């Protein structure tokens, strides 16, 4: 116990790939081996990777839908409250509240809140912003936003075993496998 490394908690094993096809096939193998806490990091969204990882459809749509509904009915309610309930504004003998005249504003409110819901939902589901991540300390991993592809299996995966997992990643054809610490 003389090196600082001995006190490090492992975060997971990181395997590097040079092409999207290699990363895709590696992901299929990791999926079939039954791992659950693992991920593929890529410079852009790789087509077909969701299937290769066995991921379900994203849930962002619910955030958009609920926020959009709130926007529409919130907008209608706001106009009804302001122009009809709280302080009636008679203009040209028209009704104080009409859903037709209120539609443009309620429509814009739907889109406004729906957009916030989409971005906010995406960030919430991704647990972002996250200003510290073990992988971001690794200088080799910096190539992930450039032209490299990484399969990372986390140490707290129930099936994780440093040797077995290393062997599996080796079998997928990775040229560089590295243990990343917390």
């Amino acid at each position, binding site marked *: 116990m003389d090196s600082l490394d001995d006190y490090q908690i492992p975060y997971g094993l990181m395997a590097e790939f040079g092409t999207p096809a290699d990363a895709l096939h590696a992901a299929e193998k990791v999926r079939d081996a039954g791992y659950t806490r693992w991920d593929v990091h890529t410079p852009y969204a790789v087509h077909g990777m969701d299937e290769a990882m066995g991921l379900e459809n994203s849930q962002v749509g619910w955030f958009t839908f609920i926020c959009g509904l709130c926007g529409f009915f919130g907008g209608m309610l706001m106009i009804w409250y302001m122009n009809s309930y709280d302080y009636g504004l008679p203009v040209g003998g028209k009704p104080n509240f009409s859903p037709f005249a209120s539609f443009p504003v309620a429509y814009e409110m739907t889109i406004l809140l729906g957009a916030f819901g989409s971005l906010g939902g995406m960030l919430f589901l991704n647990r972002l*912003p996250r200003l510290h991540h073990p992988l971001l300390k690794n200088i080799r991993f910096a190539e992930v936003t450039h032209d490299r592809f990484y399969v990372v299996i986390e140490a707290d995966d129930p099936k994780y075993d440093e040797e077995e997992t290393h062997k599996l990643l080796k079998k997928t054809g990775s040229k560089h496998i590295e243990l990343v610490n917390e």
Partner: protein
Amino acid sequence: MADHSASSSVKIAPPPVELEREPLVANQRSISWISDTIANVIEDKTPRWWWVATCISALTSLWLPLCIVHLISTGVGVWGLNHPVAWGWAIVNFVWWIGIGHAGTLISAILFLLRQKWRTSINRAAEAMTIFAVMCAGIFPAIHVGRIWFDWWLFPIPTSNSLWPQFRSPLLWDVFAVSTYFTVSVLFWYMGLIPDLATMRDRFRKVAGKVVEPAARLRNKAAQVFYGLFSLGWTGSNRHWRNYEKAYLLLAGLSTPLVLSVHSIVSFDFAVSQLPGWHTTIFPPYFVAGAVFSGFGMVLTLMIPLRSLYRGMDEIVTTRHLEFMCKVTLTTGSIVGYAYGMEFFIAYYGGNPYELYAFKNRAFGDYNWSYWLMISCNVVSPHLFWIKWCRTTPWFVWIVSIFVNIGMWMERFVIVVTSLHNDFMPGNWGYYSPTWVDVCTYIGTMGFFMTLFLLFCRFLPLIAISEVKGVTPFADPHHPLGGAKH
């Protein structure tokens, strides 16, 4: 890092001649070349032309505070507005700027839903253009209200008078439409930027050890903090990409009806009134088509110099991209031309003498110069794009794009001024001319717009790095260049 030269290690059988298409990124560039080329704009020494252009733009933008202070301290009389023309350059400029914004949203949202992959090369810069154009647009109605210190009455906030805004007025719909448009455009733009900001963060981190000079070290540290903070800890995780792509699709789906509604609502400012020449049902679609037309004009005006000023950009924004943009310009220009004709026809066919007079007056009255300038710029000039040479020669496209910008400004001038200057009775007739304050405020917004755009080019990735990577064959896991083994 992969080699930066054109890669030739993988041989692909050429497709049949009739199916052959020019690639979206020329010369089979690798994905590492794409991030290097786009990021180098930020990393390299600031080019001299950038300093010259930014100084000129920033100095020009000083007209804006100068004229606004003069306007507020003196009153709206400093503008050329008077009886009977109470809407002049300010409203023309407002509609012109907001229309320009529409091309950015069309490129980022509608072309995304239509799966037009060529949009990836231009969407970032076009969205930036949208945001800056909407900022310029927003200035005009705010200073046009007369008593600028009551601008906050436009917003639904409880005031000491316990009065609320009047929600049956299209002018209030405009407040909601434009502010929503600006906010959603910023959200969409920022979300697209997140992976590219992460690219910049990682690039500055990779070279941090090699920087020795103290000033350069400080710059590198500042860049790491700035890009690191705004990339929100993006790691390119596929679990993240999955939610990201869905959110991007949803934002595109929300922005599409938004962009169509914004210019429709702007057109309601006119169409809901009772004035001949304004009170027509053709206005919403005609305004939207005109907005996209003028916006593509501005995208071309900005992108053509950029692609030749920055090294390697012409391989990402190729002549094929210019050709596509020219075709959209031609299409929307034809819709606009059709709308001009249809307006005239309905004015004749509708049997309303005032309506017919308003249109005759547009073409042959006191402002006929503006009408025929509009017709020659908007109806005649885009039809040059039927000829392939005209679509593929950058300098020529640039000149036509300037005509489009001028023509669409004239269109709004024709609509706003000609309907007002000859009212129902000859006692209400007059001739409107702008003052130096009108002109200089407009010039000021041009400087403001260009300053923001140049700052954007200098400090943010001006092309969507991750999206352009995604449309190359190297990015496709089912393509031999992406490593697929058949």
